[in-house]
């Protein structure tokens, strides 16, 4: 089965979800993680739509978490990356590494 090709932001959202893990990855934490690591502002609206698209492609699944007081007693929708999602991430990162390999100018050595 051919792996799903990913857009740049889709890849970043999947990487953030993997890093946070299935018990801590949800919209707010994913947006915060991306902002912290990439040092670029992320609109939560974009994270929402990206997660919806990833879910419709079968790259992530979601489930309801526990309710929390800081959320006004509302639950979180936790994100788990599926095997297909993981394969898509691997394929995308491999492709990037393959393209970057040997390009000193990109790796900052030139």
């Amino acid at each position, binding site marked *: 089965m051919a792996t799903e090709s990913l857009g740049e932001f889709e890849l970043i959202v999947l990487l953030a979800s993997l890093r946070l893990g299935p018990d801590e990855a949800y919209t*707010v934490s994913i947006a915060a993680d991306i902002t912290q690591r990439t040092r670029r502002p992320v609109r939560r609206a974009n994270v*929402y739509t990206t997660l919806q698209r990833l879910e419709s492609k079968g790259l992530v699944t979601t489930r309801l978490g526990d309710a*929390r007081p800081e959320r006004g007693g509302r639950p979180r929708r936790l994100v788990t990356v599926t095997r297909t999602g993981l394969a898509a991430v691997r394929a995308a990162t491999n492709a990037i590494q393959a393209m970057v390999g040997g390009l000193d100018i990109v790796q900052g050595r030139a």
Partner: protein
Amino acid sequence: MRGNVPRWCNALLAWAAPRDQADEAIGDLEEAHQRRVARRGRRLAGVLTALEAVDVAVALLRERWRRRGTMDGTAARGSFGARISLLDFKLGFRMLAKYPGLTVVGGLAIALGIAVGAFAFELAAQVMHPRLPLPDGDRIVALRLWHRQANGVEEQSLHDFIGWRESVKSIEELGAYRDVDRNLVTRAGQSMALRMAEMTASGFRLAGVRPLLGRVLEESDEQLGAPPVVVIGERVWRTQFNRDPAVLGQTVRLGGVETTMIGVMPESFGFPVFHSAWAPLRIAALDSRPRRGTQLHVFGRLAPGISLDEAQAELRLLGERAAADMPETHEHLRPEVMAYTRAFFTVSWRTVMTSAYAAQLGVLLFLILVCANVATLVFARTAARESEMVLRSALGASRGRIVSQILAETLVLGGVGALVGLSITNFGVRIVLGLLQDAGLRLPFWIRTSLAPTTVLYAVLLTFIAAVIAGAVPALKVTRGLAHRLRQAAVGGADLKFGKLWTGLIVTQVALTVIFMALTIDAQQDMARGHAMRLGFPARQFLSAQLEIDRMTAAAEAAEVPYTEAELAHYRATFDAVEQRLAADPAIATVTYTANFPGSYHTTHRIEVDGASGSSHIVQRARVGLKYFDALGVPPVAGRGFRTGDLGSSAGRPTGDDALGTAVIVNESFVRQVFGGGNPIGRHVRYLCHAEQCGFDRSAARTDKREPWLEIIGIVPDIAMTGDPDLLRMNLPGMYHPWQPGDAYWARIAVRVRGDPRAFAPRLRAITTAVDPSVRIEQVMTLEDLYELELRAYDFAFRGALLASAIVLLLSVAGTYSIMSFTVSRRTREIGIRSALGADPRRIVLAIFSRALAQVMAGVLAGTVLLLVMMRGIQSRQGALIVLLPVCIMLAVCALACVVPTRRALRIEPTAALREG
């Protein structure tokens, strides 16, 4: 610190998100908001959260539309929401430049609609749902007693406040204040009238605002016997003490009592409402029997974790207990707790909400009407681009795609209109608040001069509504049957025409234009009448002011008991002393007291004359000082002036309103209108009723109540009485009663100054303060300035009416022009054939334009009939002008709008027309 996400944000997300994900989306928003509150503070966090809610909602909706398009197979051509692209908006901007007429007329019309809508929304938001700019402002509440039988607020609530303070658990920092007016006199002798709050110390804790200098009030200051202290506001500190930091510990005379200043509050601080100085509320000195004593306002903050409903439940219980314990005073009283600002409405909240919703509905209807007019123009433009539509359809564009493009074009137009409209609203809000302040109204500290973010969002919503009505509706109509026309390879079919809906719109629009113009002419006449009114004496040489003296005891002031003889004697002596000191000043030519200034509000009454039973007259009435006419330089032309013996008695009356005496002086208009120019001296008149109550209609039913006869002792020339242009048009005769200050705690004074009267204002204050430091002196201005102030509201109303009229007229002209142009372009072939067959050009023009002309005539007729109904027929030459002028203007401009299309129709060459067909 914890802040709440605005409720409308949650509602927006609940609507936009998929049903099974709404709860989590709202939870995310809440969590993100709390993080922002911790990082950036409540105010900024609120704005950012609102913006994010809109952003997320738009993204979720776009995703839903995109998915729906994918599911129903239209994704390749784009779903409705996703169809509008950046290119469409670029084309929309191009259209603005390509059709400047539509851009200006349509843009202005939408701007007007949005300006009116946003203004009404902002007003409602500021009045009904203001945000208190205080920490946890949304948890600050007011407590009051509601009298169910009287259906009103019971303000004598000190007894209940004391009980609540001991027993209520759900509300913290329970406190109270009462309004007092005092004169503050500095050691240098400068004086300033202050609206103060006597407030419990808890008010400062509740507001949580730190003083600029010194300290705020403490509980120990409230004890009987504690030294008198006051906290002053920044404005007082700036204007009276030149920001001197050494004011702390200094004393000032406050209402005649030496009082120590202990603190200065920032300029933005006005809690509880609009106060500029604060003294401790000493409850022990006040009458605390049930439903007796002072008017009190109670406030507090909801305890942590307690909702408004829970607090209300506790108060209800206390109310029931009080009703059982004290049925004679509390049987009909129910304690209420509510959002702080809501307590300032003395009618029920349901009445307020109903009025607000009715106003919003009216505004929405107005916007729909305006946009429907713009839709007429868009329809004509879109119909003119029919060939472009057919071509695009041939190249594969769906109907939805074409409609989306037209919608995007009107969204751009609406966006430009919204920007202009919001600017108008912002300007209007500032003007209205400025007018209110100029009129002497003090605005609550929570009133803003800038627009709320929610108002901007509401304007965005109105823009969408406007774009859908003005763009999507005509687009759907034009693109109906596009595929059929494509198959027929024909453009300009007879099926594309203005239908009944547009006809109705144009008729309504023309009728409204006639009415708007009539209202504008009426407002202009009012304004011109006001400006043209001659005051009848050199008003610019007179400096005027209102003087007020404190009641002799706090208890008398609090309970508003009738004046004692001692108090009245004190008032009389003080006002006499002020008059003597002023008269002795070399800069002063004359001095007079009066209860009514010329050019300001006067009461109107119905009177009857002796020997003329059965007929009555409406007159305006003034109460003036004994030397009033001489001081103004207009002595009586016949009879005599007032003497001390003409005065009535006012002892024991709370206001002295009815102490009129038995002698009156009338003006020359009175002589002409009531006595037909005959001699009235020695004749008698008497009051029947207040005209405000029994009506201005001369044939109105008369009352049985008869007042004493009054003798006419003199005639004076006409000088200004009322300044109300509505009453000025009635040219009411005037009657004067003798009056002298001292029958109440206040008096109005006018002094004729040798030289510049404005420059005398500080001296007037100094002289008054020297007589009695507790006398407050307010509204110091020349009599001419006072009258100009009265007229400013009418000027503003006229400008608003003029703007609305101009835009509605422009819409009518543009609509008529569109119909004519459209008709010519549709019937080019027919015109050509008729010309070829030798038809008379005049008959061709009449045949083609008859429908449009009939619509204009129908509109003019409908507008005229409505006007006549509103005016109850034409009763004067001015009334005829108000009706005829708009009709003539309307017919003239519609005729002008027909000129270009008519010339175009008459220039059609038969050969060219047949070739085109």
